[in-house]
């Protein structure tokens, strides 16, 4: 069966068509933001009214929105529609400070599904494909986000969710899975278990396409995963504040991720001066939503560092391309696709009277999977009893798991043994293999 190349007409828009649509949607978004108590006050303080936004360049007059703003208005202070029009929320993990909440109307969910579907269609997913999602479902947006997008494409979906690798492999062979969504470290894990079980991915499965994201990885990692599994692997970029997956995605050229400019206005700024950087230079990604009802965000500082790839893409799409994420302009850790701030760990540790104030978080690769070790210094007075030390370790582990949703390995260490640099404690060491 033959299909059209583009999932939506907007996907093939020229630059001038994209920019005209952006201005129209920006002005509508700004007007709509006046229904949000947060933005109404922001505009009032800045002495701005929606009519001040006449060109795309006028966007720069609007103050930035930060994650702290989302926390301060937790849970519903940013909403631009009444709650009875919202049908779902997604929330970040953690109880430290306030988590963040993103609200969605039915129309938001549809727009999100369309964006994910466009991404999947772009890399060749078609209704005859079988799509298996190894993301956690629930609050983690990689689950439901890909689920709805894959259904929109018309694929047969297998919502396998995270973990249970043997069952994942059984689904591959029994259901003839052709497309898989997995974080890169889990893709490597799948291959390891295939080898252990004598499964040859090329001979015994129909796997063809892999969608990888939510975890920083290098070009070498991608090539290795492609060689191992005999697939084409495409990089996916999203974040819960921008719904989740479907923000930017690689095309078959595999050279940068097209970010959908009919959904978002992209700015790259110097994180210190907040001034725009020239195209091609690395800075912090700032996004303005153009298609969101429940919680539009204006100039949201994502804290992700990246750059815009200059030049035209041979694929024929004119939506700009983002390079791989180069890191963060804050201290957020991304582990197994879960976002964690060191302060969440610190807050838990400091509740234990047996512990001193120094700790070290080590991220490493174990059996192809991300793992976290938390070394924490004991205070001088401690218990002369292994059983009590073990139950202390277990209790710390349990409380950390409840907070960050990942089970770290907790090690008690004597005081004054953790490394310090220039008097300031080193809190995070990342030794993960980038494959």
């Amino acid at each position: 069966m033959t299909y059209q190349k583009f999932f939506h007409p907007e996907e093939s828009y020229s630059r001038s068509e994209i920019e005209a649509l952006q201005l129209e949607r920006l002005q509508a978004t700004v007007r709509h933001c006046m229904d949000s108590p947060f933005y109404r006050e922001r505009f009032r303080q800045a002495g701005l009214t929606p009519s001040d936004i006449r060109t795309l360049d006028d966007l720069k007059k609007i103050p930035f929105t930060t994650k702290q703003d989302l926390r301060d208005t937790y849970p519903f202070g940013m909403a631009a529609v009444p709650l009875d029009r919202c049908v779902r929320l997604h929330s970040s993990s953690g109880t430290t400070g306030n988590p963040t909440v993103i609200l969605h109307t039915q129309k938001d969910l549809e727009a999100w599904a369309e964006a994910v579907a466009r991404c999947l269609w772009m890399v060749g997913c078609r209704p005859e494909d079988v799509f298996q999602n190894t993301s956690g479902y629930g609050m983690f947006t990689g689950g439901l986000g890909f689920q709805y997008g894959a259904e929109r494409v018309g694929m047969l979906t297998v919502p396998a969710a995270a973990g249970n690798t043997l069952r994942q492999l059984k689904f591959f062979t029994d259901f003839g899975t052709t497309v898989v969504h997995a974080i890169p470290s889990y893709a490597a894990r799948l291959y390891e278990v295939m080898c252990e079980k004598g499964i040859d991915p090329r001979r015994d499965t129909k796997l063809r396409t892999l969608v990888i994201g939510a975890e920083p990885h290098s070009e070498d990692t991608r090539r290795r995963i492609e060689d191992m599994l005999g697939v084409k692997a495409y990089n996916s970029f999203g974040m819960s504040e921008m719904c989740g997956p479907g923000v930017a995605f690689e095309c078959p050229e595999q050279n940068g991720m097209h970010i959908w400019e009919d959904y978002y206005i992209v700015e790259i700024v110097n994180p210190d001066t907040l001034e725009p950087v020239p195209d091609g230079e690395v800075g912090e990604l700032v996004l303005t939503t153009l298609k969101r009802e429940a919680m539009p965000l204006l100039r949201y500082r994502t804290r992700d560092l990246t750059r815009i790839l200059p030049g035209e893409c041979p694929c024929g799409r004119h939506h700009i391309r983002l390079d791989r994420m180069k890191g963060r302009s804050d201290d957020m850790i991304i582990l197994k696709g879960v976002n964690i701030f060191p302060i969440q760990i610190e807050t838990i540790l400091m509740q234990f009277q047996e512990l001193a104030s120094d700790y070290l978080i080590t991220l490493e690769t174990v059996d192809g999977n991300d793992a976290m070790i938390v070394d924490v210094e004991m205070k001088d007075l401690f218990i002369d009893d292994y059983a009590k030390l073990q139950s202390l370790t277990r209790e710390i582990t349990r409380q950390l798991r409840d907070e960050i949703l990942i089970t770290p390995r907790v090690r008690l260490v004597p005081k004054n043994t953790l490394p310090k640099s220039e008097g300031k404690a080193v809190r995070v060491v990342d030794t993960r293999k980038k494959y």
Partner: protein
Amino acid sequence: MTVQQLSVFIENKSGSLVRVLRLLKQENIQLIATTIADTVDYGIFRIICSQPDKAYRVLREAGVAVSLCEVFAIELDDRPGQAADAIELFAGEGISIAYLYSFLLKGKGVLIFRTDHAEKAAGLISSHGLHAIEEKDLSLLL
């Protein structure tokens, strides 16, 4: 009727044991008995030594995580079955033992143990005429 024991918290890492022992050596402190169990990440190095108060101060000043506690040291004849009889006595009274180790000193066996029921254990030791070594006697035995 107890002796003092140092408990040193050390990492399971080469060099950590040496560091503690060298600090004691520098102060001319003599070891009488030591024990350490093999665990994954850390160990508790338990030490009976001469001048335990001085040893505690030295280690503490050097930034070593250390504590000082009282443990029982029961002197027994160096004959088969002595330990069995002693422990049976405590077990019969429901006194559980947190940990135990032993050594030989001047032809006598010494059983060192710690229990959370210290008063009850002390009563039993007196009423059954067991010989519990005192801290002040310990250095005399060296």
